[in-house]
């Protein structure tokens, strides 16, 4: 389902497929001109230290700086996001795409039973520590917010976003 991503959900590692460039024709024209087009994947790399401006990588690996209003105006299909993102819908299945961070972090997550490729669910968003339900083993684990930030999940086929 295509949606506009609210400004507050524009976080690093969010990824989506652009469906429409937004209603402002001038901006749309300019985006298209530079090769940011409907159908392209767009992934947020980082937010500027002062906020407001974001760096994205589009399609075949081109990096751009954009303002968040311009991205928020686009219609997108969300593909991936950090586990803490407000885009994550409670009670839905997500697949772990990447565990950011070093070896220690991976090992710690593995001990908890979290690995890349696993299916997870988040039940009560907004709570700390962060409760995560492991779909395959049926177990529930609790993660710190910092840990959950480093877990990037993707939307599964037939899931809520598709």
């Amino acid at each position, binding site marked *: 389902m295509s949606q506009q991503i609210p400004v507050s959900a524009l976080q690093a590692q969010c990824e989506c497929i652009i469906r429409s460039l937004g209603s402002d024709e001038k901006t749309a024209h300019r985006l298209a001109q530079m090769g940011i087009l409907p159908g392209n994947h767009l992934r947020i790399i980082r937010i500027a*230290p002062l906020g407001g401006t974001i760096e994205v990588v589009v399609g075949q690996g081109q990096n751009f700086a954009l303002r968040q209003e311009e991205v928020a105006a686009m219609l997108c299909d969300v593909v991936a996001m950090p586990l803490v993102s407000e885009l994550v819908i409670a009670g839905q299945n997500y697949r772990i795409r990447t565990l950011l961070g070093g070896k220690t972090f991976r090992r710690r997550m593995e001990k908890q039973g979290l690995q890349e490729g696993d299916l997870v669910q988040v039940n009560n968003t907004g709570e700390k520590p962060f409760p995560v339900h492991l779909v395959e083993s049926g177990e529930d684990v609790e993660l710190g917010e910092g840990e959950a930030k480093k877990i990037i999940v993707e939307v599964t086929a037939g899931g809520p976003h598709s």
Partner: protein
Amino acid sequence: MVPTPESLTIALGAIPNSGKTTLFNRLTGASQSTGNWPGVSVEKKSGSFVLGEYSITLIDLPGTYALSPATKEEQVVHDYFLQSPPDIILNVVDARNLYRGLGLTLQLALSGLPMVVCVNMIDEARRQGVVPDVKVLSQHLGVPVIEISAKTGEGIPELRAALYEVIKHPGKTRPPHMSCPPLIEKAFVELAENITRAEIASRLDPTFLAMRLLEDDRPQQWLQNDQVTTIARRLRQQLEQTLKTSMPVACADCRFNAARGLTLEAMHRQPVPEDPLSKTLDRIFLHRWVGLPIFFLLMLLLFQGVYGLGTPLQELLASVFDLAGSWLAQIKPVTALPVWLQSFLLEGLWQGMAVVTSFIPLIALFFIFMSLIEDSGYMARAAFLMDRLMHCLGLDGKAFISILLGYGCNVPAVMGTRILSSNYSRVMTMLLIPFTLCTARLQIFIFLTAIFFSPAAAPWIIFLLYGFSFFAVISMGLVLKLFNIGGRPEPFIMEIPPYRLPLVRSVGFRAWHELKDFLSRAATFIMVGVMLVWFLIHMPIDAQPASDASWAGHLGQAFAPVFEPLGIGWQETVALIFGFIAKEIVIGGLAVIYGGTDPALLTGHISALQAMSFMLFCLLYTPCVATIAAIWAESRSIKITAISLGSGLVFAWITSFVFYQAALFLGFH
């Protein structure tokens, strides 16, 4: 008999960051000239070189992503191609990033004009193991494709040979095919047929014209054929309704699809690896906590590099000119001249030359450091970091650096606005730079605060003046934005290029050309300004210079009612006229006017409050003739130059008035 060389025009077009300028320098060497494209502050560079029996004019078009105009630069390139198509097109693409460049290449190839494509940075591409197959590209595009490295000079002879071949045997070019959705293709065909039928005289391919017509909002501006433009408008409306996207977006989509396909074929489906160095460097330079401190550190280095090195050199040159001037004043042929002529030669002409020369080290250093920052790719990062701050003025982050450098000297800072990405940013920034407290003004403030305030208070006054200058820049920015001066802000979409090692050759080239440019464009203006001031101060001949009998004195007295409410007497007004040459002269000017040699005698003539009002006026009014000359040279617009002069004077007057009257009201005197 030697045949007269035939002159031909080649247009060099490419997307930004593809090494276009390096190639331009490579081909034309020293024979370059710069100007502006008519009506906009977009730089126009052209150069010449000889190719066999032909003399070639090479036009460096602004870097653009496509021919469908979304920015002023793109409008310039678009109009150029449609109104005065060049004899040959030379297009450059980055070998490591074919996909990005090929969109424009396809558009250009469709024009039907003879064309040569260079695949640039082939040496770096080889190092990364991503070498495109130029044969495949050439086959698809229907034009010669040459591997080159503008940096090392590799492939340049082959490129010249290919251009020569194209001139000698133009032949019929075969425009490439670009598949679009059937509906759009049908519209192209229908419109092209109409264009052919209307027998529009153009060297451009009818299908190319049809594409431009369908993407253009105002085709009647370049095609005087109502019948065709009406059909185009109707077709566009139908298409946009059916496809539910605007034509420029739909066309960009088919262009990039074609480019993607062509890239895959040319690379034999080998994926392009990402640049690991840029990724690592960005993790540091754009880091959430470390990024900004590094930025400010680099800005400090930049500032120190330009002004720490430049200002002493500037002073050195000034003292050389002073020494030579006093030597000249004593030699026989000069002393034999009438006194007024001596004064004109030494204080008018010689002084003017001194002012012009004193900017040379600053401008050279400024552009050396700016090129380093720009060519390395850090400029885009700086723009990213500072964007939020400048966004409120409708400017992007690059403008921050220009304005910051104004705090050293306004002249190079104004010249540096040409690196900004949009016409709006350039105009806004060059109008804001004059409100920055440059080092010349700082000299006045240091001097006046030292004689009017206690040593403990003086630094605070200077600090307040700096604070007020920041405030002036921001408030003026908001006012100018309100009046839409310079058009509307452009949406900020900036490519972040990979980091690159700057080339000493091109950095040197740049500095040298900017200097040449400054001397040819601004020097006359500065000389005229300085001499004008000389006349005001020294005429009529029998009057004491700068006295109440001189023209400047008359002018000062005529304006006395205007300046009186600011607490500025006619004598100080004359000093402000002096300040038009260069702010450094204001103090000396005051001394001359009050007829003393010791400027500290000033305390007997004006109060501390009046001095403060005078300083505020100095901070805000027209910086100096050189800045005005630079604004004029950059904008080529009398309107913008006049706005700069006017806004400075009005803002200065209001500020001093409010300050002085409020202080009087509160009982200070």
